C-alpha cells in the first residue's frame, strides 16, 4: 500500500515537474508571438514618424469611410475624401494609407493631379485582423492632415482549406 502511494506521489510530482518545465519551454514561444505583435505596431509607429518627419498631424480635413465590421479581411472597401480646393496652390501632394497591424504597415501612397475638384478616393484594402487604419494627406504646404478608423476583421466562419 505504502509502495503504491509513494509511486503515485512520485508520478504526480514528475508530471508536475514536466508540466512546469514544459510550460517554461513554451513560454518563450508565446512571448515571441506577443513580441511579434508588438513589433508590428512598432513598425507602424516608426513608419508614421519617418513619413511625417515627426511633424504634427492634424485630425481634420481628411474623411474616412470604412465598414465597422469587414466582410472579409482580404477586401475591405475604403472611401476617403479630402477637404481641399485641389488648386495648384493648395492641394493634396500625397495620400498615404497606413495599417497599424499589417505585417507591412504601408498600404499605399498615391498622388493626384489637382483638377479643381474635391478629391474623393475609393479602393479596397487588405487587413490582417482587427485594427485601426490611418489615412494621411500631405498638402502642398508640406503640412500633414489625417484621420483614422477602426475596423473589426473576423476569421471566415467556415474555413476553406480546399485550395
Amino acid at each position: 500500500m505504502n509502495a503504491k502511494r509513494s509511486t503515485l506521489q512520485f508520478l504526480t510530482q514528475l508530471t508536475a515537474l514536466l508540466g512546469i518545465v514544459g510550460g517554461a519551454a513554451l513560454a518563450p514561444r508565446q512571448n515571441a508571438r506577443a513580441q511579434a505583435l508588438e513589433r508590428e505596431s512598432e513598425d507602424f509607429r516608426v513608419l508614421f514618424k519617418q513619413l511625417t518627419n515627426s511633424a504634427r498631424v492634424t485630425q481634420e480635413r481628411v474623411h474616412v469611410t470604412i465598414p465597422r465590421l469587414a466582410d472579409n479581411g482580404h477586401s475591405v472597401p475604403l472611401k476617403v475624401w479630402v477637404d481641399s480646393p485641389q488648386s495648384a496652390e493648395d492641394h493634396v501632394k500625397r495620400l498615404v494609407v497606413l495599417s497599424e497591424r499589417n505585417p507591412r504597415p504601408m498600404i499605399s501612397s498615391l498622388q493626384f493631379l489637382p483638377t479643381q475638384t474635391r478629391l474623393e478616393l475609393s479602393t479596397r484594402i487588405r487587413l490582417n485582423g482587427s485594427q485601426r487604419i490611418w489615412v494621411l494627406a500631405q498638402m502642398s504646404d508640406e503640412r500633414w492632415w489625417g484621420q483614422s478608423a477602426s475596423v473589426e476583421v473576423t476569421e471566415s466562419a467556415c474555413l476553406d482549406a480546399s485550395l
Partner: protein
Amino acid sequence: MTSRIILPANPKVGLKMDIRILIQHPMETGFRYDASGSAMAKNVIKKLSLDLDGLILFSGELGTGTSANPFLQWSVILPKSGWLQLKWEDDEGNSGVERVLCNLSA
C-alpha cells in the same frame, strides 16, 4: 492579366467625373503557402499611373495591403478629351498597359 479603365457614359467638359481602374492581379503577399508547403513568392503591383496623352493624372505605389485585383476610383475634372493610358508594373517585372479613348462632350 486584363485590366479595365471605366469612365462614365457621357463625360462632359468641365464636369467632375469618377475614373475607375480595375486590374487583374493576385497581389501575392509572400505570406501564403501552396499545397506542397512552399512559400509563394511576393509579387504585387508596386507602381501604377494613369495619364491623359502624357499628362499624369494619377500615380501610386501599392503594397501587399492593397486587395487582389486592385481597384481604385477617384474624382477628377479632365482638362480635355484624349487617350487615357494605364500603366502598371509588378515585383516580378511584369507590366501592363491599357488604353481607352475619352471623348468629352460640351
